[in-house]
């Protein structure tokens, strides 16, 4: 009988340098600047959601995921699928920073013939699946996690969901299947910034309480501060309850890091003007100086 065998990924190197919370904080400031510049140059992008999930991606790619440019094609790698595909600018800057592709390519974001499309595609090294239509990442990750179980492989599968996205019914189909198949190798991270394109999620079509909903679907739920590196790391690495998929509800701030973008729905896909970019970069520089002085 044919059928592949998957080696354990536990021997994969994490980021070769251990990064402290302070290192991650500095990196997040740097990456926020890069993504704002990229969106400014492209004249398009999803600014608010990219800023809200950036710290989560920073933790995933610099502390947690057993994947690197060298191991990306290894079947034993950890997998990350960004279901809220519109926040792709955060993913691009993190992948470029990790060496999946040259940082200079960020300048081509959304340009004619650029591989850096406005939503994730596998044309870009490091991206597992093409996403952007909402409600697709979780079912895909259920498939990947199930394959891991069937192959007795040790890799973990992560997806990032938006809270507005959870109105898509396919998420709940997948949530049922994940619990049914006892996929404790699957973690769904909810970028819970409470805003979507039209306004407050609770006003658009309320979906709270999300923790109780996921629990009722048979998931283990952990709620954390979504910009706290230690808390995110703890929630994403603590031992799973056997047989239960994990939902980490990360309470985040849309537009995090730039005062006038924070918690404002219009920055969902707002593009900064010259003056706004300047102010945003200054604020981030000030945050960096403050951080360094501590």
């Amino acid at each position: 009988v044919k059928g592949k065998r998957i080696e354990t990924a536990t021997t994969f190197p994490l980021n070769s340098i251990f990064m402290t919370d302070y290192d991650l904080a500095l990196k997040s400031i740097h990456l926020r600047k890069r993504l704002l510049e990229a969106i400014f140059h492209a004249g398009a992008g999803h600014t608010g959601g990219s800023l809200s999930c950036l710290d989560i991606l920073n933790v995933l790619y610099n502390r947690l995921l057993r994947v690197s440019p060298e191991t990306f094609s290894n079947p034993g790698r950890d997998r990350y699928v960004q279901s809220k595909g519109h926040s792709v600018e955060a993913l691009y800057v993190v992948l470029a920073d990790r060496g999946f592709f040259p940082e200079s390519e960020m300048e081509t974001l959304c340009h004619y013939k650029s591989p850096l499309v406005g939503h994730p595609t596998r044309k870009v090294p490091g991206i597992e699946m093409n996403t952007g239509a909402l409600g697709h990442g979780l079912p895909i990750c259920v498939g990947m996690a199930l394959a891991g179980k069937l192959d007795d492989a040790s890799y973990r599968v992560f997806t990032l969901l938006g809270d507005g996205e959870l109105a898509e019914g396919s998420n709940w189909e997948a949530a049922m299947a994940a619990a049914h198949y006892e996929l404790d190798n699957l973690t769904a991270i909810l970028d819970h910034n409470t805003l979507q394109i039209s306004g407050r999620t609770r006003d658009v079509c309320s979906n709270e309480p999300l923790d109780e909903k996921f629990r009722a679907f048979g998931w283990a739920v952990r709620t954390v501060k979504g910009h706290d590196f230690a808390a995110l790391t703890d929630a994403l690495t603590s031992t799973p309850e056997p047989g239960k998929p994990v939902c980490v509800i990360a309470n985040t701030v849309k537009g995090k890091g730039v005062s006038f973008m924070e918690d404002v729905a219009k920055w969902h896909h707002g593009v900064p003007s010259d003056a706004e970019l300047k102010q945003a970069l200054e604020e981030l520089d000030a945050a960096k100086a403050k951080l360094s002085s501590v």
Partner: protein
Amino acid sequence: MHSSAAKALAEKLGLKLGRTNLDEFASILMELAKADRDVLAVTSDSRGSGKLGPFGQALPKQLVEVGIAEQNLVGIAAGLAAAGKKVFAVSPACFLTARSLEQIKNDACYSDVPAKLIGISAGVSYGALGSTHHSLHDLAALRAIHNLTILVPADNFETREAIRAAANATHPVYIRFGKAPMYDLHPAGTKFEIGKAITLRQGNDAAFIATGEAVVHCLLAAAHLEERGLNCRVLSVHTVKPLDTEAVLRAGRECRAVVAAEEHSVHGGLGEACAALLMQAGVSVPFRIAAIPDEDTVTGSQADIFRHYGLTMEALAARVLRLLGQTGPKV
């Protein structure tokens, strides 16, 4: 399904009645899965209608049940395929290609993972269950999606070959078939190649370009017309996409009339694909699409519906005669 005259002609031609394409699929899938543990069937409470009960009993770890959730069916299948599994997502064609159209477009085709999408009880196989259960849109919807091979086998041989080819495909494939017993149309030794139509009968008076369960009716119509002195070509176009443009253009150039036949809406299926191809190549030939018209489909069995809309030996032969300017019997 066939009139007594058609059955008699089939017998005269030596056609043997095989089993249903669905049964053929289920048996080939079992064979493939027994030899390769990466072969999986994913079902949406459709293991019964997919004849996969024995598969589930023999290979329980290789049957993934997701419940009545077709979007999830295709999403999970895409994830499994991305992780290296040879995944056959099996669901009635009506649900698989409408409820989960976006998952087919994005998760399978755009992401380019080799998921195999199996539309069972396709076309009007569900007959009197009504339009909720018919898939007369699937070829039209899926032809407009990039990076999908579309296979519509006409008999057990084509089904077997299509499933085997799909198992090893490196890109997504959609295969649709029905659940009526099919005549074996191909002599032993016939070659099956994705993208290459099979010529079942030579002739230059008219050509039938057909796919799926409509093919046998065209073959019988061609044999029927031979008794009137006309030699008609019959192409079994098992691959609707990518279309065998060479075979279609040759038929248009070499024959005096063309009838395209399919168990699908007149819109967007094989017929319109052929029409667009011929017109853009400057081939002008009397041409008709024999398919299900754009109307509230008549109630009845698959055979009733085929008969009502002229997908029978008699009606197809009459169409050719009319296209050739000859008077045929009114059907």
